[in-house]
């Protein structure tokens, strides 16, 4: 009995607040916009009769989804989100790997401190960290001041409100998510494997490439998913740093909901975003599952 309650309580909570909401989003994505409260039709009200149910299901259609395909805005937003997410994941991997590698090679007594230095930004407000780049990247910002002072450029560059600023923002805010899994993979690495490789005549670089790199693959995969998936639906970063010309689907959804108050279209956008994300999420969970089994 106790076991049942223990399982049932978190289970029902997640069903109610996580799974059922998705069913509702799906249902509303098939509804039509209406000038009423709530602002969509059809709605079900008590008592639910068989007739009412039939009418209800008959009124659902895929109109919102056809609308999404006819308007360029949505296509472009999905594609540009994908592009931004892929490129920034690759950059984060390239930036994060050497840091994780350096941490794993550092002396034992330094490692807790280095670890804390990576975790600290992760605990600091996301919004504030994105905001901190506004003052750096703007026309009269610190980066332009610095570049002009060193004489690299004579005119300030336009960086804020371009996709470049979005890339910088994503790499900056998601970097800890990349470093930590790679670091934990590298930390577990058995040093004697590298010694063996070198004894067998590998150069240091070759030993790295043939031993360390493949063994840190699981960490790289986990880190890449942890960056790619949330970056695809990112809203705060493109809104603050990307300006009006950077299209991202998270921003489109937000504006559809808050500015146009079109719940059905916002829901349809969410459903498609979810469909794009399902495969990476499943792959990510598989990877995590494999890791957990390997650890146990």
């Amino acid at each position, binding site marked *: 009995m*106790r076991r049942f309650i*223990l*399982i049932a309580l*978190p*289970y029902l909570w*997640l069903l109610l607040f996580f799974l*059922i909401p998705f069913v*509702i*989003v799906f249902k*509303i994505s098939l509804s039509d916009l209406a000038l009423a409260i709530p602002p969509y039709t059809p709605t079900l009200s008590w008592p639910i009769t068989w007739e009412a149910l039939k009418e209800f299901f008959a009124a659902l259609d895929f109109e919102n989804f056809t609308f999404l395909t006819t308007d360029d805005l949505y296509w472009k937003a999905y594609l540009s989100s994908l592009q931004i997410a892929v490129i920034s994941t690759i950059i984060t991997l390239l*930036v*994060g790997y*050497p*840091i994780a*590698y*350096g941490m794993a*090679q*550092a*002396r034992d007594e330094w490692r807790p401190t280095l670890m*804390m230095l990576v975790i*600290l930004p992760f*605990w*600091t407000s*996301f*919004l*504030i*960290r994105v*905001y*901190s*780049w506004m*003052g750096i990247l*703007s026309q009269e*910002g*610190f980066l332009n001041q610095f570049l002009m002072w060193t004489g690299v450029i004579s005119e300030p560059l336009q960086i804020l409100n371009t996709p470049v600023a979005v890339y910088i923002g994503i790499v*900056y805010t998601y*970097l800890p998510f990349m470093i930590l899994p790679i670091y934990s993979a590298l930390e577990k690495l058995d040093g*004697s494997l590298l*010694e063996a490789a070198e004894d067998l005549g590998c150069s240091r670089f070759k030993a790295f490439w043939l031993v360390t790199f493949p063994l840190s693959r699981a960490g790289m995969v986990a880190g890449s*998913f942890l960056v790619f*998936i*949330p970056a*695809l*639906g990112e*809203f*705060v970063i493109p809104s*603050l740093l990307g300006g009006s010309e950077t299209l991202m689907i*998270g921003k489109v*959804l*937000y504006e559809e909901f808050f500015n146009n108050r079109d719940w059905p279209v*916002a*829901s349809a956008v*969410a459903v498609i*975003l979810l469909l794009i*994300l399902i495969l990476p*999420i499943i792959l*990510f*969970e598989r990877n*995590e*599952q494999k890791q957990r089994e390997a650890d*146990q």
Partner: protein
Amino acid sequence: MRRFSWFNATSLTLGFAFLYIPMIILVVYSFNASKLVTVWAGFSTKWYGELLSNDQMLDAAWVTLQVAVISSTIATVLGTMAAYVLVRAGRFRGRTLFGGMIYAPLVMPDVILGLSLFLLMKPMFSQMGVHSIVLAHATFAMCYVSVVVSSRLVSFDRSLEEAALDLGCTPFEMFRLVTLPIIAPAVISGWLLAFTLSLDDLVIASFTTGPGATTLPMKIWSAVRLGVSPEINALSTILISIVTVGVITASLITKRAAIRQMAEERAAERA
């Protein structure tokens, strides 16, 4: 065999410079006397004064604190239960779905979580407000808590629990007397994580809020959309300092607990 080369030193220095310089600039310029954020005009604490006399900001801070404390407490209870179920309950019907529901919110974009929770709760409550933000935050934060706690549950010695049961404990007593003290550091850091996630959240709170429930991130958001402001720099500095002190304290506590536990285990072995 660990080798620390110039390459490693350079990548660590550059990496940490990249992570910290933006925040350091923010903190330094919160003490700038000028309204222009990028031009230094001498040291001043006037923005802190203005911040503390801004009643709207203080109200928002109070709302945020209430939401964070309540939601992270609910999240910790539910998340610890969920972790225990995941690691200890063995197989049961629907376990895969359960695991999926724990891990999916960790990577789900905020806009989707926010929209779906809004659509669920809008008909549930006559008015949305602090309570609906609390429910929303508790839901996604419990998943983080359960990940943190389950990693501790996986790594600890099950024979301690079995011993407690052999010595006549009921399962609940076993949990209270053996399991909970051992996983306590993870439960505490889970609570802290849930607390900061709630403190931080803009998107989900914007979807699930109602009249009179403006949180600090929502205030910050409407201010920074207009550009950089020294008052927000001051607020950021305060928040960064709180987090820094919190994280350092938490890591010291966990470190001390780990050392004590190691000493106790060693003493037990000797006895």
